[in-house]
């Protein structure tokens, strides 16, 4: 690294820059220049264009997935592929795979990234890019992503919000070892309804992928191991073709100019331009530099039309309360999706509040603003530590992204408006639940626990029968902390928050519940298609790394006896069959420390 060169560059980058003390928090909205870490890291907000993540191009994998040359233990793909790829599994059968299977390659590796223009910060990136390249997928189009770990750290990849086999779900101990590869099989198959038909109500839209390695998730995500995955099904493609929603694809496979992901993460820097990571911060990392798509406080030139923005909270511990403002006045917009799922209808809102792991798709209409108008995406949630936000305070507003309007009104704009029907939803009813489970999020003498227990990959705390609807109750009894609750495998329906009906945008489908201080959230979830193990955990990544996690194992019924099959875990050792974990048994024996 050559900090002197950068210092020189930065010193000349803004005449308005003023020296500030080291590590001052980000100034309020409207400040001219932001000091970061030291005067040498100063930048001027909203002078860097918003980067739009490029798309991951399909490729040919050699050896082909599922062949003996790519099986567990092989040199080419040491961790193999999910057994569901080959069996006559519902997710793999031909009639559910309507489009040819696509293959992709991702390599996680050490790289440098400019979060701040001109400052090369050491980073970890999928394909060396931060955030990672965008994966564009379709329901009915199976994908295999061959992920290679070129970094010297444990890794596992989780496609957050996806409905995938256990082998490919990013279980914290289903590693990709350094130098090794794993074929992540994403069937993009819908779970089946009771009538055996694909359940289109559970089709997903905005997913994100990120590292999920045991104890190292926070560190790996902070260093850059996160990216987006956008999925469409027939229904959503129809909404786009009918010009209800903006186009998701640009011409020739380019990213769309009107459907733009906005991945938010707050970063903190050392004097030398490296990311500041405090290995003793077990509360949750809070940064002082707001970034969007990997860049500190960028700007975006917009036309006078409607845009779809896919907001992603990839922060480790920060909670956002987002609004769009013009000259201090909030501009109303529409929310069309919560987490992975389109809402039943477009909801008019004036703000979006979300927690680590959440997504929110919104529609912002710039047509009413004359050319030259400047608007901001603004966070008005004040938060100074990883415990919880202090509360909404417009006086503490921080502008994340500036929009600059240009041109005349665009004719023939998309038609989405308040109340426009999107994805139908038949709500689950509590009477359908065959089991109720209570998950109590606690803190005991500095330790994060769920139900007075620490996560262990040796045992499953729950073994739901495949196909069951279950009622789960998340209780936050930790006394002054927030714990976003994220069950893998399936989206869930929030039926009550503190005994009350949830707000409109939260009462449909979610994949990460905003479990605030002292809160009780009741959910219903329909566990289908894939047998476990899966995990449910707090999505404050620092808490997650400290084992605020449980393992649940969906088990199938034995067709001969009709009884649920036994759990894979003996409670003493990590005894998952290598086909499911992707880890050869000899490695478990030689490195028990990796499977604890």
């Amino acid at each position, binding site marked *: 690294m050559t900090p002197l060169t950068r210092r020189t560059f930065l010193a000349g980058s803004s005449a308005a820059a003023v020296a500030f003390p080291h590590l001052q928090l980000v100034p309020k909205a409207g400040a001219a220049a932001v000091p970061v870490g030291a005067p040498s890291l100063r930048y001027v907000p909203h002078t860097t264009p918003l980067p739009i993540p490029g798309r991951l191009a399909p490729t040919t994998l050699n050896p082909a997935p599922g062949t003996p040359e790519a099986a567990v233990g092989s040199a080419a793909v040491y961790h193999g592929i999910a057994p569901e790829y080959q069996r006559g599994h519902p997710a793999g059968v031909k009639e559910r795979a309507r489009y040819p299977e696509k293959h992709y390659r991702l390599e996680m590796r*050490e790289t440098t990234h400019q979060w701040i223009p001109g400052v090369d910060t050491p980073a970890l990136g999928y394909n060396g890019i931060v955030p990672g390249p965008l994966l564009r997928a379709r329901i009915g189009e199976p994908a295999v992503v061959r992920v290679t770990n070129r970094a*010297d750290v444990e890794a596992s990849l989780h496609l957050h919000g996806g409905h995938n086999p256990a082998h490919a779900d990013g279980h914290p101990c289903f590693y990709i070892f350094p130098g090794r590869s794993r074929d992540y099989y994403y069937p993009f198959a819908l779970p089946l309804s009771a009538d055996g038909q694909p359940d289109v109500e559970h089709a997903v839209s905005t997913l994100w992928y990120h590292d999920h390695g045991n104890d190292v998730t926070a560190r790996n995500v902070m260093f850059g191991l996160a990216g987006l995955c956008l999925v469409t099904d027939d229904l959503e493609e129809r909404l786009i073709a009918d010009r209800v929603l903006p186009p998701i694809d640009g011409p020739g496979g380019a990213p769309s100019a009107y459907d733009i992901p906005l991945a938010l993460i707050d970063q903190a820097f050392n004097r030398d331009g490296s990311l500041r990571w405090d290995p*003793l911060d077990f509360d949750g990392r809070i940064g002082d530099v707001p970034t969007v798509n990997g860049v500190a406080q960028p700007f975006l030139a917009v036309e006078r039309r409607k845009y779809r923005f896919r907001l992603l909270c990839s922060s480790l511990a920060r909670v956002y309360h987002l609004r769009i403002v013009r000259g201090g006045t909030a501009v109303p917009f529409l929310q069309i999706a919560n987490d992975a799922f389109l809402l039943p209808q477009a909801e008019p809102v004036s703000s979006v509040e979300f927690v680590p792991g959440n997504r929110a798709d919104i529609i912002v209409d710039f047509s009413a603003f004359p050319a030259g108008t400047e608007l901001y995406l603004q966070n008005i949630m004040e938060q100074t530590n990883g415990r919880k936000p202090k509360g909404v305070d417009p006086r503490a507003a921080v502008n994340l992204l500036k929009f600059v309007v240009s041109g005349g009104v665009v004719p023939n704009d998309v038609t989405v408006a308040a109340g426009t029907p999107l994805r139908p939803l038949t709500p689950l009813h509590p009477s359908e639940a065959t089991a109720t489970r209570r998950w109590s999020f606690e803190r005991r003498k500095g330790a994060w626990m769920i139900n007075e227990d620490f996560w262990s990959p040796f045992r499953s705390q729950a073994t739901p029968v495949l196909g069951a609807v279950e009622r789960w109750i998340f209780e936050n009894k930790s006394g002054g902390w927030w714990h976003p609750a994220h069950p893998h495998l399936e989206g869930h329906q929030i039926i009550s928050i503190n005994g009350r009906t949830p707000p409109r945008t939260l009462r449909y489908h979610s994949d990460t519940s905003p479990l605030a201080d002292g809160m009780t959230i009741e959910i219903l979830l329909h566990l289908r298609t894939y047998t476990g193990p899966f995990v449910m955990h707090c999505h404050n990544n620092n808490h997650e790394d400290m084992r605020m996690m449980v393992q649940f194992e969906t088990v199938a019924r034995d067709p001969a006896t009709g009884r649920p099959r036994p759990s894979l875990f003996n409670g003493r050792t990590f005894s998952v069959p290598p086909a499911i974990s992707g880890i050869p048994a000899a490695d478990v024996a030689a490195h028990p420390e990796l499977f604890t």
Partner: protein
Amino acid sequence: MAAPEASTSAGFRPRPRERVGAAGAVSARLPDVVLRNHRDEPRRLREELVAGQRVLLSFLYTRCEEVCPRTVEQLREVYHHLRARETGPFRFLTLSVDPAYDTPERLLRYAVRRGAAGFPDWEFLTGEPADVAAVLRAWRAVEPVEPGGVEDPSSHTGMVVLGNDATHRWSAIAAGAGPDLIANLFLRVARPGSLGASLARTAE
């Protein structure tokens, strides 16, 4: 709350081990104090006991009759577990959160009673109360106390903090999580070399 203490006050130092590293070594931010161990020897915490080393830290006070004795028993098992699997050096540091009462002699009696006194690389530490308080704060070993509140030794963390000061990798786990889990976490987080190299050796 003020921004966390900058861990780079020592300035930029290249870290060949941790190419994707971030903050400087944890030892660099510890107060440079001299503590006394249960053998009544002066020990310079930062330079002698932590810098560049693999460390497992625990916290107790000898007047605790319930939780702390169990912690020491668990750690004794962790110690034997690690010694059976590890040839490399590591240190166990057990710091009193009640330094005014816990003299070196009391710590020695306590360690002897718990069968933990005879290990050269396991030290029970005490010191000037102000020094110990600073050390506890640096290790985040005390629950935040309300302004004007009294620091109660029984409110100390039940966590064991472990890591490798050379690689800057640290974690923490409840002392009650069980010896196997704690030992394995230490072996993973505080491993001396590259994970890639150790896995490659296995594959051969």
